[in-house]
């Protein structure tokens, strides 16, 4: 099996989870209501735990320890999509990103549950069950706020418009796409994007929200090869601050 291809796939998924997990954790103590504060904090914990499981798979393939990989790289060495590094913005944007990202991730892990790379398939089978709850949460709020009143609808539509091209950036293809497909490791980004569109469309329709017209689709690519927005640097600095002070600290 092509280890380089598997590593590339694992890195981008683990980095997406780590960075969105960190963004989610920024709602801790600031959520608009207690239940939402807890929801974003729980999702943060889930995602960081899931990223750790993927970093562990990378470690088994010869990469450094999970903590070292997570906390000692600089922003250019991260492979997350730009979408997940964007600041939380208002709650409407956070919810919309949560919806668009989590549906994609759940579908990704469902596909990977059948991966020919068995260690990844095992982890994916576990994670896809956990992500169900993230998607439940997202669906509930998208439908509720999309059709609550004029202001909430307008805010959610704006959030969707702002998020859209970044969300498409999640499906940036890597250089090993063909190998991953032919070896049965992962069915590919194009396939995933297709499933994603099919899944989000009915929910957005129910929420009376409109997906931007196809003519305006300009996916924000680059994240997978280390090209990031100005928002990732400060995030990485903050996330790794404690680790860098004392890498051997016992917790």
């Amino acid at each position: 099996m092509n280890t380089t291809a598997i590593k590339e796939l694992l890195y981008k998924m683990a980095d997406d989870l780590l960075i969105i997990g960190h963004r989610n954790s920024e709602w801790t103590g600031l959520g608009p209501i207690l239940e939402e504060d807890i929801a974003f904090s729980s999702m943060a914990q889930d995602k960081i735990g899931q990223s750790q499981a993927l970093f562990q798979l990378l470690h088994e393939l010869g990469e450094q320890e999970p903590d070292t990989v997570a906390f000692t790289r600089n922003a250019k060495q991260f492979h997350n999509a730009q979408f997940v590094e964007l600041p939380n913005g208002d709650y409407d944007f956070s919810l919309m990103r949560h919806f668009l990202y989590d549906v994609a991730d759940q579908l990704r892990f469902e596909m990977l549950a059948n991966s020919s790379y068995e260690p990844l398939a095992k982890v994916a089978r576990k994670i896809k069950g956990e992500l169900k709850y993230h998607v439940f949460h997202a669906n509930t709020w998208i439908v509720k706020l999309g059709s609550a009143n004029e202001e909430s609808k307008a805010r959610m539509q704006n959030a969707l418009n702002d998020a859209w091209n970044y969300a498409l950036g999640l499906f940036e293809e890597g250089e090993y796409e063909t190998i991953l497909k032919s070896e049965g490791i992962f069915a590919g980004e194009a396939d995933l994007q297709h499933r994603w569109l099919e899944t989000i469309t009915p929910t957005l329709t129910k929420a009376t929200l409109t997906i931007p017209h196809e003519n305006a689709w300009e996916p924000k690519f680059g994240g997978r090869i280390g090209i990031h927005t100005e928002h990732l640097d400060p995030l990485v600095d903050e996330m790794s601050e404690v680790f860098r002070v004392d890498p051997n600290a016992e917790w």
Partner: protein
Amino acid sequence: MITEQEIWKGLELVKDPEIPTLSMVDMGIITKVEVRGESSVFVEMTPTFTGCPAIKMMEGMVADRLKEMGITQVEVVTTFDKPWDSNKLNERGLMCLKKHGLAPPVKHSGEVTMELLEHTECPFCGSKNTEMKSPFGPTLCRSMHYCNDCLQAFEGFKPVV
């Protein structure tokens, strides 16, 4: 030589750090016990949730218990080989949850839906006239509910596939 059965029995005393009525054996997170020699035991565990922060602590609790039982060589590992799902809680585990005021997870048949969670049975009065307030609670494995009959908020242990 100590038998596997004796090890399982001994591990029943190791409780979940968050739910002290519930043992790790009843929870179904201990997936394998192997006696490897006169005083050498191997235990395999699996977390309820990938991000469960208690798993390291629980590994340590299992190791400590085995040492108490006179085992000198103890190896405890956590894997996803046999992933946990909520149907793995045994009958006694379900009872323990209820006693602790937590609604036990509804048995699932390979699929978890919102509907499955919507009318979780209230652990205080047994009513199903309840609603889910949030799929997230104080720990990753719990959700929050409200009982319209006894007017109490309660937590549930999430069904997970």
